[in-house]
């Protein structure tokens, strides 16, 4: 892999993203609106729920508003980064294949796209992290922020994989909605999880570890090494799968 090519690809991919001004603005408007809605409609009366990754007996008592804010922050970062990632791998297939034909390595191309995505995960994650203390003070802010980044990493990698797998934009959007809506948009909310009939299914979904990382850090002082490592592993598996599928799609014939 030629680092010079990765750097050029990364810089130019960021230039492309930077010119999608309305999309960029929406990346900051969407979490703001999500937070405002949660803040306005949820109650502040404390509720009790279990935190899955700590133990089955770990019961916390928190305001549903605060819990909802962390949950919606995770959903915002996860969904936005997965759509951005989908855009990166699915758009311009003809030009990207032409680049590969001209000598650009497939892994160089995907790495440069991934690094551009990392910048976007950082920007969106930091923005969501920055507005969280406006509404409430989490126990361990930096680890909550790490959870947001982890959600971006896992769902960003999922978006890259979907973009590499399906060629049409509508199919890609529906694939992301299919998983994101039910996973990071619903089942990972600890309030649902605590009473779920089949918790094993929820534990295997992509947003499980990032949401546990943020939730445990926001409301307890318990260890979060396991959800942190789990997020890293889950994201890396998805990213590797994206690289394999993307390489197959871009490969030249003998």
């Amino acid at each position: 892999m030629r680092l010079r090519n990765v750097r050029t690809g990364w810089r130019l991919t960021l230039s492309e993203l930077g010119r999608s001004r309305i999309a960029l603005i929406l990346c900051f408007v969407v979490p703001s609106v999500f937070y405002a809605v949660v803040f306005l409609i949820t109650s502040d009366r404390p509720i009790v729920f279990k935190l899955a990754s700590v133990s089955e007996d770990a019961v916390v008592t928190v305001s549903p508003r605060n819990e909802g804010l962390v949950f919606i922050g995770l959903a915002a970062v996860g969904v936005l980064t997965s759509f951005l990632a989908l855009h990166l791998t699915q758009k311009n297939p003809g030009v990207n294949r032409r680049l590969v034909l001209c000598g650009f390595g497939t892994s160089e191309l995907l790495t440069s796209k991934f690094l551009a995505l990392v910048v976007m995960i950082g920007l969106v994650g930091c923005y969501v992290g920055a507005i969280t203390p406006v509404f409430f003070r989490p126990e361990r802010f930096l680890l909550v922020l790490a959870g947001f980044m982890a959600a971006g990493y896992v769902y960003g990698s999922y978006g890259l994989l979907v973009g590499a797998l399906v060629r049409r934009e509508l199919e890609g959007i529906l694939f992301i909605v299919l998983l994101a809506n039910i996973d990071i948009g619903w089942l990972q909310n600890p309030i649902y999880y605590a009473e779920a009939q089949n918790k094993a299914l929820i534990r295997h979904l992509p947003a499980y570890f990032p949401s546990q990382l943020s939730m445990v850090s926001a409301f307890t002082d318990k260890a979060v090494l396991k959800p942190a490592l789990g997020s890293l592993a889950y994201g890396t598996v998805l990213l590797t799968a994206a690289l394999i599928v993307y390489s197959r799609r871009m490969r030249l014939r003998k």
Partner: protein
Amino acid sequence: MEDRAPVRTGGHVLEVQGAAKSFGRRSIFRDVSFGLGPGEVVGITGENGAGKTTLLRIVVRLLAPDAGSVSVRGRLGYCPQDMAVFETLTVRENFAFFAAAYGLDGPGRGRLWAVEMGRLLEFFHFSKYENAVVSTLSGGTKQKLNFCLSVLHGPDVLVLDEPYSGFDWETYLHFWQFAGDFKKRGGSVLVVAHFVYDCSPFDRIYKLGEGGLTCV
């Protein structure tokens, strides 16, 4: 009078032997053979759906043939029929991306690609759009960029799919002037076009149709 395209061996920079391609049950072409020698300009025409673009995609390895073989000697430049440029990058940024792909921005090479880019922009009269975002350009100017990206690295063999569609008459003449200079330097050109206005620039023209290739 039409003859079956001769199979010429030896001395070719590009050679296709017995190529066949089908999509599902639909046979596009079969037993297609032709060669392109150094300093030759060869055209392939044919009706819509005859398989011209499919044949070129096989030549440049974007598609695999069902049968037959393709060999190319030297550096290949390929201009696809569809506009394969980054619409949200500027003209210069597109050149930079392809310069990296061709390995023209490596250590010790400075910005030689930028000099070559300047020369191409000047030749095809679109220097003033160097820093314009491609999506704001006319179709003809985008096509100039599409073509120029295929010659940035100084290829030995040019494979061009409808390279002058969208060109105005002046640019069309510039294109053939460029191709003529390229040929004089020993470069070889394979051009696919729906129809040919003027046969004089070509050394040979083939027609692809009814499943095979015939020399016109």
